[in-house]
């Protein structure tokens, strides 16, 4: 016998913490935006993102990706801390006790509400030790130079590497294997232990596509 009185004993039944209208609060007078916990948010205009890419290209040339990747890692470190704090406080459960689907929904909504596009996880390579992350409508890709022959979402790759390394407690590495700037419909990122995903970089240089890279990574893994 299910007692509804017991079900509603806890007065709060949580919904979507990252609903954009609830999460992002703005004040016209001060010109500040903050999240629903009162932490400051910053808005990056497209022109600034474009300028970051152009400026880095001018200053450091080919090392642009490395710089952005390291910025992303730093960003991801703090992003993970905040994410865990906010989600476990709102849903009143530590992240480790949340169901996978709830965690994933939170991450998807969080990513979208922060304006980083849409994110999804592909866990079909889980057995082989790889996690594939798919993003699309990325503002970073939109601002980056197009058709350079190399994926351009280094900042996101850094964020993902840092985020999932902390989540899993393993030192993971992230390689982007498809990019919207190269005409792909999605940005694809492969996460796994460094020595296992590292070969993907060389195959990427050879011009191999995501599916081929995944096939080779899994084959190397099985061998």
């Amino acid at each position: 016998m299910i007692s509804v009185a017991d079900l509603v004993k806890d007065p709060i039944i949580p919904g979507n913490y990252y609903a954009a209208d609830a999460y992002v609060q703005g004040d016209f007078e001060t010109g500040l935006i903050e999240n629903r916990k009162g932490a400051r948010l910053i808005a990056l205009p497209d022109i600034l993102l474009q300028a970051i890419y152009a400026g880095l290209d001018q200053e450091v040339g080919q090392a642009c990706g490395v710089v952005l990747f390291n910025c992303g890692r730093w960003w991801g470190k703090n992003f993970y801390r905040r994410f865990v704090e906010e989600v476990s406080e709102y849903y009143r459960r530590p992240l480790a006790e949340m169901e996978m689907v709830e965690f994933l929904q939170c991450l998807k909504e969080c990513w979208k509400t922060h304006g980083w596009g849409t994110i999804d996880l592909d866990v079909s390579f889980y057995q082989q030790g790889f996690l594939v992350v798919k993003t699309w409508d990325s503002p970073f890709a939109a601002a980056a130079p197009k058709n350079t022959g190399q994926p351009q979402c280094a900042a996101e790759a850094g964020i993902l590497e840092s985020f999932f390394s902390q989540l899993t407690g393993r030192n993971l590495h992230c390689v982007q294997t498809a990019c919207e700037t190269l005409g792909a419909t999605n940005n694809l990122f492969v996460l796994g232990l460094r020595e296992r995903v590292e070969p993907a970089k060389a195959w990427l240089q050879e011009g191999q596509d995501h599916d081929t890279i995944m096939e080779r990574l899994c084959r190397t893994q099985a061998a």
Partner: protein
Amino acid sequence: MHTELMNLYYKAEENYLSNVDIKVFRHHIESLQQRLSTYEFLRDHEIEIFQPVADALQKKYPTENPQTLEQVLRQAIALLRYAAMAMLLNNPEFLQHRLLEWLTEVVNAHQTQTLWSSCHELLSARLQEMLTAAEQDLILPLLDHAQATLVGLPAVVSVHA
């Protein structure tokens, strides 16, 4: 603030509102009163609404894991709370953003669509017993819309703000 009332405030910036506008204003105020009393009713009768739904659901699915049933019921309780607020604000998007965008994939992953459909039918029937026709018109379209979203059917009801 209701968008309709805000629009009237802006309109009244330089002159008196016309008779038609006043009529519209009165209509919104009356509608707001009705929404508020429906909201209060739903809030005050939460257990009374859901206990028969819970019993009937359990009777219909005697072999189902009680935890799964409890989970669906808890989600249904949340749905009615968010739908009630969306009704009060006269803003279906509130329900969409604050709950459905999050819940749809959760329901999908749990594969509880069949339970949801039954729960929705039982809840709608229960509300039809307890609410007046006018009150039903305020809340049921939101629940139908939510149901269509949750089980992945094209919406058969359109909800107008």
